[in-house]
């Protein structure tokens, strides 16, 4: 799968990889994350799910807009802008390649 900014590869995993849990708005640029938990509320979950952002999905953080703007992610080939208020409620596990 590919994102718009580079030719992305699947996230590397190894026994040495450092993993930690955070929220999507705090995930660093260009990193791969895996969605652990979605915002409460059917509407938000449904709309995010429709564009491919759901639990267990791997996302690549492409950019974060300033002034509390959205987070731009690549979800399985789809580039999605997720408002900061929603991104703050998406729990992710960040996987840093060794």
């Amino acid at each position, binding site marked *: 799968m590919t994102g718009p900014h580079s030719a992305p590869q699947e996230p590397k995993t190894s026994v040495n990889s450092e993993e930690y849990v955070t929220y999507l708005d705090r995930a660093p640029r260009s990193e791969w994350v895996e969605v652990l938990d979605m915002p409460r509320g059917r509407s938000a979950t449904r709309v995010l799910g429709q*564009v491919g952002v759901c639990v267990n999905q791997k996302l690549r953080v492409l950019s974060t807009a300033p002034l509390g703007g959205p987070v731009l992610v690549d979800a399985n080939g789809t580039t999605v802008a997720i408002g900061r208020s929603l991104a703050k409620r998406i729990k992710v596990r960040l996987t840093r390649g060794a």
Partner: protein
Amino acid sequence: METSVESRSNLADVTHGFLPGAGQITVALIGQPNCGKSTIFNHVVGYRSETANFPGSTVEVSRGQVRLNGYILQLLDVPGIYSLTSSNPAEASAKQLLLSSGVDLIINVVDAALLSRSLELTLELRELGVPMVVCLNMTDDAERKGIAISAEKLSRRLGLTVLETVASRGRGIRELFSPATLCSAGPASVAPVWSRDVEDAVREVETALTSDREESNLSNRFVAVKLLESDSDLTGAADAHATEVSDNARRRLESMRGRSADSVVMAERHDEAMRIFEEVAVVGRPRADIRFILDSALTHPVWGYAFLAAIFVGFFWVVFRLGSALERGLQPALAMSATQLFARVPAGGLIEVMLRSLWDGFAGGASIVIPYLVPFLFGLAFLEDVGYLPRLAYLSDGLLHRIGLHGTSVLPFILGYGCSVPACMATRILPSRRDRFIASVLATLVPCSARSNVIFALVAFYRGPGWALGVFCFNGLVVVLSGWILTRIWPEVSPGMVLEVPRYQIPAAKVMTRKVWLRLREFVVLSWPLLIAGSVILGLAEHWHWDHAINMALSPLTRVLGLPLAVGTTLVFGVLRKELSMVMLVQALGTTEVARVMTTGQILAFTIFITFYIPCLATIAALVKEIGRKMTMVSIGYSLVVATLLGVATRLVFASF
């Protein structure tokens, strides 16, 4: 037990008895947003549906009729939907169309480059039991991303005919609409297989439904799944017994899975779509693509804004340079023609007044409106088709949220630079009613191409492009401030933005030209005749001195704005079409050298007032449709107050220098 799937006739049966002209089949193009439905539609029926490279560019169903190979085909271009659970009015209208029995065949347009996600809708549509063909579109993009899809395997896996197309280049469209393809459509023969607990729940509800739904045109499986998902549109489709069974099944499923039943079903579809994708596609190394680098710069947290400013300054600069060059070139030629034309007409009579008014209306349109309108529409079409607008929404969401609006609101605002009517209609992509109302009001304050024309032809032409850019920036500031005021009058927490950002596309010159012509045609066939008629009415009013009465009636307004008395009539014409106010101004003042009879302050006060005051009649009609009569009156009142206050402020600022 006859299920409603079987009660649906196969399309082959429908088309068999068809004699040319004897009837028609209705074919709906359905797919996720921005997958190329409107492009296919335009290829088949001619350019009627506006296309653009952003999700939500189609907000209502477009219809076209063609005679193909001996049968009449009624083609429907349906707004894009991610699923059959609607989250905004545009999606709701698409869903309503599908749930009605008016569609004989679905062509499910699938973006091949986003196959796994697109298949989730395909799986949902398949449950409807309507004859269906899958159109695997944008296969060139998929190849560029390194995705090789076997259409044959996909067809076998889905139990549906699958055809590959590249709609933007017209590839595969003929085959898609060939009788062989259309007649091969049938309800899917392969049933979806979900996890056992979900399948058990679906079958339980399905069984409860069977007894009383033989008349319905929807498949029992589809209704059962929707009842489990608590879809409010389908709750009326079941009797008390089936509702009770579905409630129990839903509760049981939720307690077993620990989350809502609709998210369980969504996850099942997602998993199945992923499984199918893995079976039918091979993902290789993507080709090097400059678009990745370009996007990295254009969405950069710092450089993104610098590029945004450069793009808009460049856009208006090019429009002005081209427009003024055309205007300067055309005016002497038209003046010379007028001299020759009126040389033989007796001076001072009614005939001369009428002929001169006719000519002024025609020449005004040709030399003032067209020169700026054409480059403006081409520029806007380029920005729309290249896919920059969703990036603009991404960059401006932070600012819009600060004034209490949804970031996606920026899309109607940008469309507003073209025409306020589609801008008001585009607010349907917003999920909240309040956001739709505020975005509609704000979109009418954005200078449409007609009002931009006034800015270019008056401020830029007589005072320079820097002044015109200042007017556009000032307008942006007023729109932001108005948003801030309106969101405080109607406070509501705006839902977070979720916007798909499409891939960049190289705009096709042919598509852009057709789009520009579609928009320009509105001016040529609607506004220009109105402009000529308005010019004649004004000429006659001046001849018989009726204009004096109108100008006197409007004198309190023109006086407070510090404008010449003669300008009053032009403000009335501006309500019909905004271009009229500019051309009428030239006629009312009796000279094309506006700068000789109006000061800079007066030119700016007039332009600012025209930019903000009452929307044109077509926009008022669109507003009534979108937000209702009462709120339209509020919108008109608001724009009038804002225009007057800003016009007076402009006058006072310039008077103090």
